[in-house]
């Protein structure tokens, strides 16, 4: 009877396609909005994620997230190095400054000052040049988006200069740094160099990056540092979540995206659910005839579930295809770079679609099960 169910489903093309497109559109909208939301909310942690060498971030006890930092004292670095279980600890500066291009255009930039000796914290994804070129005088690595802002329509290359705090900044490399929350260019330079680029402040030690000795867990090391120094120590993952939580609690972003996602959920549930229910209602006489002829309720339920699964999976596949095409198109577009369609989102939407078609088919099944086959004798 499966082919009967499928033929009944596709017979009314207009209704069939409206069902498919309703689910496809809802899936696309959900995938699109949730992925963009996740992508944007992951951005405040971009600079944390890009530091792949260190497991532990140490900071002022009142630091809430990575974009607002109260600097440590220089000697805090030595206190941290003295904590048992620390394999190494290096300084990291993270702040903002203003950079000016050769044509006069300027922009606030995120400046990362990495340890002079080890270059821990330097970008690992280099498009042009090498991190070791940071050893040159006035050297800095700029991210691709920053380069394209200061040097529009030029191919990626090194040797250009910017100006920061009346000092020359020599571009020695171009990185593929993760996009920051505010779409500022990201500059990496040596720690000692950063001091010159931003001007003299009393303290510039934003963070200390540390790595535990073999056999010491990250959590254990964080606890030891906090106990020994009174500073705040977080694993990279925890610190990323801190940034996520801060923006969730202190901005309107989640409300904004939440509303869109809710609308997509409601539209995506109601429209296909109602259309599928109406589709079943319009086929009641046929189901009644099948019941009278001797088709069992179990078989009719399986027919309806098959129809629901076909509609759901086709709509879902189409929606995910549209979402994948969208993200593939905009992946390399500067404002939306790095925003991807995570497999977890795809899996969650599959569950949502399953729920939607399940709910719609449950309503339809209930109606068909209580249907008296004697209805076929009413003209």
């Amino acid at each position: 009877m499966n082919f009967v169910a499928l033929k009944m489903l596709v017979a009314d093309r207009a209704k069939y396609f409206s069902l498919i497109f309703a689910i496809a559109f809802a899936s696309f909208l959900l995938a699109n909005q949730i992925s963009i939301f996740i992508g944007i909310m992951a951005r405040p942690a971009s600079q944390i994620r890009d530091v792949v060498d260190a497991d532990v971030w140490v900071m002022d006890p009142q630091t809430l997230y990575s974009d607002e930092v109260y600097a440590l004292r220089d000697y805090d670095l030595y206190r941290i190095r003295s904590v048992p279980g620390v394999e190494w600890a290096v300084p990291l500066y993270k702040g903002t400054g203003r950079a000016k291009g050769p044509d006069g255009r300027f922009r606030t930039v995120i400046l990362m000052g990495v340890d002079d000796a080890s270059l821990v914290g330097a970008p690992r994804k280099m498009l042009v040049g090498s991190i070791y070129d940071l050893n040159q005088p006035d050297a800095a690595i700029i991210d691709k988006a920053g380069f394209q802002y200061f040097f529009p329509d030029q191919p990626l290359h090194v040797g250009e200069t910017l100006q920061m705090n009346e000092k020359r900044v020599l571009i020695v490399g171009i990185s593929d740094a993760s996009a920051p929350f505010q779409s500022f260019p990201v500059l990496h330079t040596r720690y000692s160099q950063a001091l010159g680029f931003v001007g003299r402040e009393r303290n510039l030690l934003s963070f200390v990056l540390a790595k535990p000795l073999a056999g010491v867990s990250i959590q254990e090391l964080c606890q030891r540092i906090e106990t020994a120094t009174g500073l705040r120590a977080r694993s990279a993952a925890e610190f990323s979540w801190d940034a996520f939580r801060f923006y969730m609690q202190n901005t309107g972003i989640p409300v904004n995206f939440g509303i869109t996602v809710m609308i997509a959920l409601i539209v995506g549930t109601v429209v296909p659910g109602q259309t599928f229910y109406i589709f079943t209602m319009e086929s009641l006489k046929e189901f009644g005839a099948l019941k009278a002829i001797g088709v069992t309720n179990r078989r009719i339920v399986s027919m309806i579930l098959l129809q629901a699964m076909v509609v759901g999976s086709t709509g879902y596949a189409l929606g995910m295809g549209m979402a994948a095409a969208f993200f593939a198109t905009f992946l390399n577009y500067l404002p939306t770079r790095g925003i991807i369609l995570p497999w977890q989102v795809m899996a969650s939407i599959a569950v949502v679609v399953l729920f939607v078609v399940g709910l719609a088919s449950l309503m339809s099944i209930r109606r068909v099960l209580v249907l008296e086959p004697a209805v076929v004798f009413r003209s």
Partner: protein
Amino acid sequence: MATDEIAVLSRDVTKIFGRGETQVHALRGIDLKIRLGELTMLVGPSGSGKTTLLCVITGLLDATSGELVVLGRRPAELSQEELILFRRKNLGFVFQQYNLIPALTAAENVAVPLLAGGVKRQQAVARGKEFLATLGMSHRAHALPSELSGGEQQRVALARALVHEPKLIVCDEPTSALDAATGQTVMELLSVTAVRPDRAVIIVTHDARIFDFADQIAHMDDGRIVSLEEDRKNGTRTNVLAPASAVLSLAARRNVFPHERRVGT
């Protein structure tokens, strides 16, 4: 053609819908015997209980009381699942509005009872085509119901009712949606293909033009069989089962005895 073997035996069968003040007595003590090989018609005005009786006989509705035996089984004693299987194996249906599945071709529609019984698609559709051929419809096997005339659709419905070789065929107003000539053709086909010594046919109808095809006619009114014409093809024997006033009033209202009137003139 009729045998002594009983297809349907109904004794004092009643059917009540609703409860309390709103209850409706749709059947009030139906006594009826239908033999294999017979074509029985249930006739009477709207609301007389014809269709309800058909539903009770086919197990689509439960009788409220009384004894009913259909092809040797008592529907009241069968579970829902057994009843469905019983219907699938032994009953064929022809509906007033055909109730063909619009998405399926004529041959596929005919194949539905076989598919429901677990026959493989190709085999079932092939058998459906064969049956359509016996009804002169082989050239329309691939047509959708919407592409068929009313008469053609009813022939497809007839083929669907016959394809699984049931013992009892029930037809609900099979000619009411057809013009006179087409209705006559459908009835001729039905009487030729459906009526067999090992099968009984029950037709609910208002259509007096087809009464001549019946072996037995049960006239119903107000949930009762008010008269029964038996052995019509061997010379009509009318048994009046209800007060004469009820029969006369029914006859006056519906002109239900044209055949007898013709004999009398």
